[in-house]
C-alpha cells in the first residue's frame, strides 16, 4: 500500500461523559484531498488533534507513510510532515507575521531569511502577505494566510485544514481552492474538515463521515448528492423552516449614519451605517468575521453609545440610552459569544434569566429580586425551547453550546421583543437545534417583530432573511431583497476578495 500516506486504525478517545472518537478507521492517499465531514460535536476536532499530537488516543494506532505514527507532541507530528491550519487559537495578535510563522516552525531560519521565504512562498501560492505586519491588524482571510504559509514553509506531506472557509468570502474561497489544488498537484495530501457539503463536492476526492464519534461511511463526493451526504452526517432528516410570506408593517428600527470609533487595539470602527427595518421583516447581515459584527450588535444593544440621532426605535431616538432603557423600549439583543457576553458562565440559568429579563418580566420589586418568579421564567424558557438540562439551578457553562444558545435565544424571544438583534444565532449548534432556532426567529417575525440577524453562514441568511446586507470593514452595503441576489453579487457585497484580485496562482 505504497499509495497510502496516513492510515488510521481503530482510534478511540473518550472524555468523561462522552466518547469523542469511537473506533475510527480510514486511509488518506498520497496526493488526495480527503474530506472529514460531520456536524459540530461529531468528533472531527479530537480526531485531528490526535493526528497532530495534541491529544493521545486511548486505543488504536496510526501509520504515516508505512511507519508508525504516534506523536506525543505537535513538534513530533510536524517533524513527520504533518501541518495544521487551525480554525481558531493559533495566532498571536501582538506579534508580527514573521514571528507568528516562526512560532509554528521547528527550526525557523534567521529572521531576515524567514521574511524572504515568507514573501517567496506567498507569491508562489498567490497569498500575498507582509512579514512585518502585526497580526492583530489583519483581516480574517489574511490571518488564515499566515497559518497556511506557516504550514507551507515546512514542506508538509499532509496538510490538515480545520473549517478553513468559515472566515472567507466566496471569492476568497475560490482562491483558497486554487491553492489547495496546486498543492495536491505537487503531491501534498490534504485532510479537509468541513460541514459545508457543496464545498466538499467541489474540492475533495474522498470523504469520511463522522457522526457521534463513529465513522458512519465514506463516499466519493463528486458522485454523491449533497442530500445523501447530509443524511449520513445528521442521521435523520429534519424540517427546514417554513417558507415565509409576511406583511411588513411600520418602520420599527431606523439607523442613520451610525459611526463608532475603534474600540481597543484590534477592534473595527463602524462607519456611517444606515438601514431601516419594518415590523415583520428579517434583515440578514453577512460578512467575514471581524468586520464590525460585534461592534454593530453592541451599538444597537446600547453597550456602546453613538451620536444622538443615529439609532431610532419606533421613531424615538435611543442612541444615548443604555441597554436597560433600550430593553424597556422593546429592543432586545443576543450577542455572539454565549459564555461571558450573553451569559455569565458560573451563574445559574435562573440568574442568567435575571440578567436581561429583570425588568421586562417584573422579576424585582423595590430592587429586591423575586427568585421564585425568576426561576419560573427560567423554567419557561427551558420548556418552550427544549433546553436539555437538569434544571434552572445549573450553571450556564455546564450546558452544551447548542443548549445554551437555545436558552439565550429563548430568553430574549419570550420577552416579546419588538426589535431583536441577534449575532450568529446558530454558531456551533447542531443541525436540528439550528433549524428550531431559525424557525423560532421566523415565528417571531410573523408575530410582527423586526429582526436583525448577523451571521457568517450565508445559507442561513438566504433561508430566513427578507433583505440582505454585508458588513465590510465597518461599512454596511445597502441591503437588497434576497430574491434578487446570486452568490457572485453577495461576494461583491461582502467586499470582494480583500486584495486577492492581485494574486495569481501559477499553474
Amino acid at each position, binding site marked *: 500500500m505504497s499509495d497510502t500516506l496516513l492510515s488510521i486504525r481503530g482510534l478511540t478517545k473518550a472524555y*468523561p461523559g462522552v466518547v469523542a472518537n469511537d473506533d475510527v478507521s480510514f486511509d488518506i492517499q498520497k496526493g488526495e484531498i480527503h474530506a472529514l465531514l460531520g456536524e459540530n460535536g461529531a468528533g472531527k476536532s479530537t480526531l485531528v488533534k490526535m493526528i497532530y*499530537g495534541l*491529544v*493521545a*488516543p486511548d486505543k488504536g494506532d496510526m501509520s504515516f507513510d508505512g511507519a508508525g505514527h*504516534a506523536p*506525543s*507532541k505537535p513538534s513530533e507530528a510536524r517533524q513527520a510532515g504533518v501541518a495544521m491550519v487551525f480554525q481558531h487559537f493559533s495566532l498571536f495578535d501582538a506579534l508580527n507575521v514573521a514571528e507568528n510563522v516562526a512560532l509554528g516552525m521547528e527550526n525557523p531560519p534567521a529572521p531576515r531569511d524567514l521574511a524572504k521565504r515568507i514573501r517567496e512562498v506567498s507569491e508562489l501560492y498567490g497569498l500575498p502577505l507582509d512579514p512585518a505586519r502585526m497580526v492583530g491588524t489583519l483581516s480574517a482571510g489574511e490571518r488564515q494566510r499566515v497559518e497556511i504559509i506557516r504550514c507551507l514553509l515546512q514542506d508538509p506531506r499532509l496538510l490538515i485544514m480545520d473549517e478553513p472557509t468559515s472566515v472567507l468570502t466566496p471569492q476568497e474561497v475560490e482562491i483558497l481552492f486554487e491553492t489547495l489544488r496546486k498543492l495536491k498537484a505537487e503531491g501534498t495530501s490534504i485532510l479537509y474538515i468541513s460541514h459545508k457539503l457543496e464545498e466538499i463536492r467541489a474540492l475533495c476526492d474522498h470523504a469520511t463521515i463522522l457522526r457521534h464519534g463513529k465513522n458512519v461511511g465514506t463516499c466519493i463526493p463528486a458522485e454523491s448528492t449533497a442530500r445523501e451526504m447530509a443524511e449520513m452526517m445528521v442521521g435523520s432528516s429534519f424540517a427546514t423552516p417554513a417558507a415565509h410570506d409576511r406583511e411588513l408593517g411600520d418602520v420599527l428600527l431606523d439607523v442613520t449614519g451610525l459611526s463608532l470609533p475603534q474600540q481597543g487595539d484590534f477592534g473595527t470602527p463602524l462607519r456611517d451605517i444606515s438601514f431601516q427595518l419594518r415590523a415583520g421583516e428579517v434583515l440578514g447581515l453577512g460578512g467575514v468575521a471581524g468586520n464590525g459584527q460585534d461592534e454593530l450588535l453592541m451599538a444597537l*444593544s*446600547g*453597550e456602546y453609545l453613538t451620536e444622538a440621532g443615529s439609532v431610532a426605535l419606533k421613531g424615538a431616538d435611543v442612541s444615548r440610552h*443604555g*441597554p*436597560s*432603557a433600550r*430593553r424597556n423600549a422593546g429592543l432586545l*439583543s443576543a*450577542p455572539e*459569544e454565549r*459564555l*461571558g*457576553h*450573553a*451569559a*455569565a*458562565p*458560573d*451563574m445559574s440559568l435562573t*440568574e442568567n434569566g*435575571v*440578567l*436581561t429579563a*429583570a425588568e421586562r418580566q417584573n422579576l*424585582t420589586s423595590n*430592587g*429586591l*429580586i423575586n*427568585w421564585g418568579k425568576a426561576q419560573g421564567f427560567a423554567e419557561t424558557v427551558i420548556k418552550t425551547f427544549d433546553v436539555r438540562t437538569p434544571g434552572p439551578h*445549573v*450553571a450556564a*457553562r*455546564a450546558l452544551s453550546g447548542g443548549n445554551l444558545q437555545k436558552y439565550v435565544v429563548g430568553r430574549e424571544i419570550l420577552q416579546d421583543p419588538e426589535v431583536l438583534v441577534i449575532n450568529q444565532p446558530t454558531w456551533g449548534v447542531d443541525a436540528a437545534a439550528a433549524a428550531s432556532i431559525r424557525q423560532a426567529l421566523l415565528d417571531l417575525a410573523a408575530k410582527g417583530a423586526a429582526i436583525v440577524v448577523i451571521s457568517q453562514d450565508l445559507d442561513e441568511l438566504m433561508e430566513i432573511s427578507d433583505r440582505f446586507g454585508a458588513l465590510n470593514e465597518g461599512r454596511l452595503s445597502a441591503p437588497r431583497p434576497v430574491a434578487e441576489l446570486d452568490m457572485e453579487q453577495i461576494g461583491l457585497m461582502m467586499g470582494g476578495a480583500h486584495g486577492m484580485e492581485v494574486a495569481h496562482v501559477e499553474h
Partner: protein
Amino acid sequence: MIRLEKRPQPSQAWTTFSPLLAVFLTMVVGGLLFGMLGASPFEAIRTIFWDPLFHPNFAAYSRPQLLVKAGPLILIAIGLSIGFKAGIWNIGAEGQYIMGAICGAGAGLAFYPSESPLIFPLMLLAGLAGGWAWAMIPAVLKTRLGTNEILVSLMLVYVAETILASAASGFLRNPEGMGFPGSRNFKEWGAAHNGELIANTGMHWGVVAAFIAVIAAYVFLSRHIQGFNVRLTGEAPRAARFAGVNPTRVVLFCLGLSGALAGAAGMFEATGPAGQISIDFNAGYGFTAIIVAFLGRLNPIGILLAGLLMALTYIGGELAQLMLSLPGAAIQLFQGMLLFFLLATDVFTNYRIRLSRKEAA
C-alpha cells in the same frame, strides 16, 4: 499522572469545606513551624486557638478581646468582599482606615471639650467620609483614566501613614500632652468615647456596626438587584455591560463603600480600644481584613466566622508570645499561610482531581 478536570459547576460542599481544610492544614504546618521555633506544636496550637477562650487565668481578659479585634476586621472585610466580588481590588483599606480615624478624631477634637450628644455621630460621619474620600482617589482615577486601583490604593497607604505621623506629632497632638506625640485620649472624654456597651464583652459601637454590615451585605448580595449586578460584574464583565450595568458606577460604589466602612472601623478604633491617634495607631487590620474576606469566601456569614477566627489568632498569638515566647511575627506568617492554603484548597470547588495515565503515549 494527576490531572485537574473542570467541574460542570462549582461544588457546594467544597465551598464550605475548603476553608475548614485550609484551617486544618495551617494548624499542621503552623504546628511544625512552632516546633522548629522550639515550642511544643500541640501546646502552641492550644495556646493560640483554645486558651484565649477557655484558659482559667487568661480567658477573662482575652474573651472580650475577641470582639474588639474581630469588629474592625469584619467591618473592613465586608466592604472589601463586595468589591472583590465585582473584581475591584481595593487593597488600601489600611490607608482608608487611618484616614477615617484621623478625620473622625479631628472632627470631634474641633469641638473639644463639648459634651453634646451629637459629637459621636458627627465623628462617625467624619470617619465614614474620610475613608470614603481616600478610596475615591483610586476610584476616580480608575473610572476616568483607567489607572490600576491596586497600585494606587496601596500607595495611598504609605501616604496615609505619613499623614498619621504628622497628625500624631503635629496637628492633632494633645496640647496638654507635654510634647509627647499622640492626640487627646478619648477614653477621658465621655461624648467622644466609644466605650464598652455591655461590660466585659468587648462589645462597642464598632462591633454593632460590623454585625449590621454582615446582615446588610447578606441581603444586598443575595436579594438586591444591585448586589446581583455587583456579582455579575465580577463573574462576567461583558455580560454585565450587556445586562445594562454601568461599570463606572460599580467601581465608585464598591471602592466608596469599602473605603467608608474601613474609615468607620478606624474611627471606632481610635475612639474606643486604641483611645487616641498615635503614630503606630494602625495595627494592620486593613491588610488582615483581606485574608478575612477570602477566608470567608467573600460571603458575609463566612466573613463573620473568619473575622472571629482571625481575631482569635491575634489574641492567641499574643498569648503564645507571652507564655511560650514565640515571636509575634510567627502569627503574621501563620495568617499568611492560612490564606495560601485557602487559595490552594479552593481548587476543589471548581475542579476535580483525577488520576489518569499520562496523556502522551
